[in-house]
C-alpha cells in the first residue's frame, strides 16, 4: 500500500485550483509493524526447524525401536512380561519334531531350548527371529518348518519350549536370537537379544550330523521329565 496520491485529494482542493495538498492527514494505512513481521518470521523458522528435526534425523526408528535386553545362554533375562532363560543350542541336519515326523535339511536345523516364566498375567510369547552370523535375519514361524509356538504360560508355572530354525551353516557362527511377545509388533516393548555363543566348529559339526535333534513339544514339565 502507498500513501494516497493526488487522485485521492478532496474535491475542495481541486475547486480551489491549488495544488493537491491535503489539509488533514490522509486516512491512515496500517503497515505491518516490524515486530509483527519478526514474530511471523520466527514462527515460520520454528516450523522449518521442526520439520528438519523430524525428517532429517531417523528419530522414528529410534522412538519405535524395541528395548533390547541382551543376555547369553544360561543367563535369565527379565522382560516386561516374562523372565526368559535360553538353554544351550544344538543342531543337526535332521529334526525330530516330537510328533512322529523327521525333517531333513541341506543346511542346519538349530534348536534352542527356552524356559519361560510369565509375569503378571498369562502370556503367550509369539515372536522369534534369528540374526545369523552371515548378516541375514531368519524369521521363525512364518514358514511352518522354523517355528516357535510355546503356547500360553501361566504365572508361577514355568513353561519349557524348544525353538527350531532352519538356516544355512554359514549363519550359525555368531548367531543371535531375538524373542519377544507379539509376533506382529515389537515396537516400544522388551525383546530378548540372546548371544548364542556359536562357532564355526559348531556349524561344521552340525552340518555333518545325521542323528536327529529333538524339538520337544512345549510343556509345563521340564523336557528331562517328559
Amino acid at each position, binding site marked *: 500500500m502507498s500513501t494516497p496520491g493526488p487522485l485521492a485529494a478532496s474535491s475542495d482542493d481541486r475547486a480551489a485550483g491549488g495544488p493537491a495538498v491535503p489539509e488533514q492527514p490522509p486516512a491512515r494505512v496500517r503497515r505491518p509493524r516490524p515486530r509483527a513481521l519478526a514474530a511471523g518470521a520466527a514462527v515460520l523458522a520454528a516450523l522449518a526447524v521442526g520439520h528438519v528435526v523430524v525428517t532429517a534425523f531417523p528419530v522414528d526408528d529410534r522412538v519405535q525401536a524395541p528395548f533390547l535386553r541382551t543376555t547369553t545362554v544360561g543367563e535369565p533375562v527379565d522382560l516386561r512380561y516374562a523372565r526368559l532363560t535360553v538353554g544351550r543350542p544344538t543342531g543337526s541336519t535332521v529334526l525330530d519334531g516330537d510328533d512322529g515326523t523327521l525333517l531333513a535339511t541341506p543346511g542346519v536345523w538349530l534348536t534352542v531350548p527356552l524356559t519361560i516364566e510369565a*509375569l*503378571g*498375567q*498369562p502370556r503367550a510369547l509369539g515372536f522369534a527371529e534369528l540374526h545369523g552370523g552371515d548378516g541375514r535375519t531368519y524369521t521363525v514361524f512364518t514358514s511352518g518348518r522354523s517355528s516357535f509356538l510355546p503356547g*500360553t504360560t*501361566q*504365572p*508361577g*508355572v514355568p513353561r519349557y519350549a524348544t525353538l527350531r530354525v532352519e538356516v544355512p551353516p554359514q549363519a550359525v557362527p555368531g548367531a543371535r536370537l531375538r524373542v519377544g511377545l507379539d509376533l506382529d509388533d515389537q515396537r516400544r516393548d522388551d525383546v530378548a537379544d540372546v548371544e548364542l555363543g556359536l562357532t564355526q566348529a559348531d556349524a561344521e559339526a552340525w552340518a555333518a550330523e545325521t542323528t536327529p535333534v529333538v524339538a520337544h513339544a512345549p510343556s*509345563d*514339565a521340564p523336557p528331562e521329565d517328559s
Partner: protein
Amino acid sequence: MSTPPAATPTAPAPVHAPGWWRRNGWALAALPVALALTLVASGDRVRTLWWEQDLRRPTAAGPGATVEFHQDVRDGLGGTVPLDVEVGLDRVADAAPLPDGMELPTGTRAVRVDLTLSADPDVVLVGCSLAVRDADGTRYDYVASAWGAWQPVSPCVPQDATGPWPSLGDLDDEISPDGTGQAPRPTTWSVSPVVVVPQDVEVTDVVLWWQLPQHVRLDVGG
C-alpha cells in the same frame, strides 16, 4: 493533588499501555484448551491399544455378595447386544477331586471357583473368561483344555445348557435352523470351573469378563 507548574513544558501525561498479561489474556486462556486438545489428538490410540486391552472397569462385589453386571457387548456386526447377569461367588476352595485327566505340574495346585449366576435365558453369555488373582494382582486364567483335562469352554454357563450363542448374522438359520438342540438355560445356575495356580498363591479375588475393559470382580472373604 497539586497543580503542575504551568511553566514547565512537560510531555503529555504518559498513557500506560495495557500490560503483557492483559494483551495476551485470550491466548493464555486458550492455552490449557489447546494443550488438552493436543493430548486428545495425540492419544487417539490409547483407548484401543491400552485401555481396552486389560481389566480396567470393575463391577465389584464384596465377600459373599451378589452383583448385577451390565455391559453393551459389541457383536462384531456393527451393533451392540445388552448383557445383563447377576453373579455371586459362593466359595474358592481346593479342587478335590480334580477334573478328569488333569495332572498338575510340579509346584502347583488346583482351586475350584463356585459361582452362582442368574440371567434371562435369552442373554448371550458364552464367550466369558474367568481368572483368579492374588494380593499382588497377578492373574491366573481359567484354561479349558490344559494339563490333560477338558473343562467347559465357557466357564460361566452350564455345559449342557449354554443358552444362545453370539449371532453370526444371516448365517444363523443355515447353521442351526432348529436352534442348538439344547434345553433352555435355567434362570439361575451354578458352575465350578477349576483354575491351576502356583502352590503358595492365596486367591484374593475372582474376575469374570466378556469384553474388556469391563469385568466383574468378586472378592474372596478372608
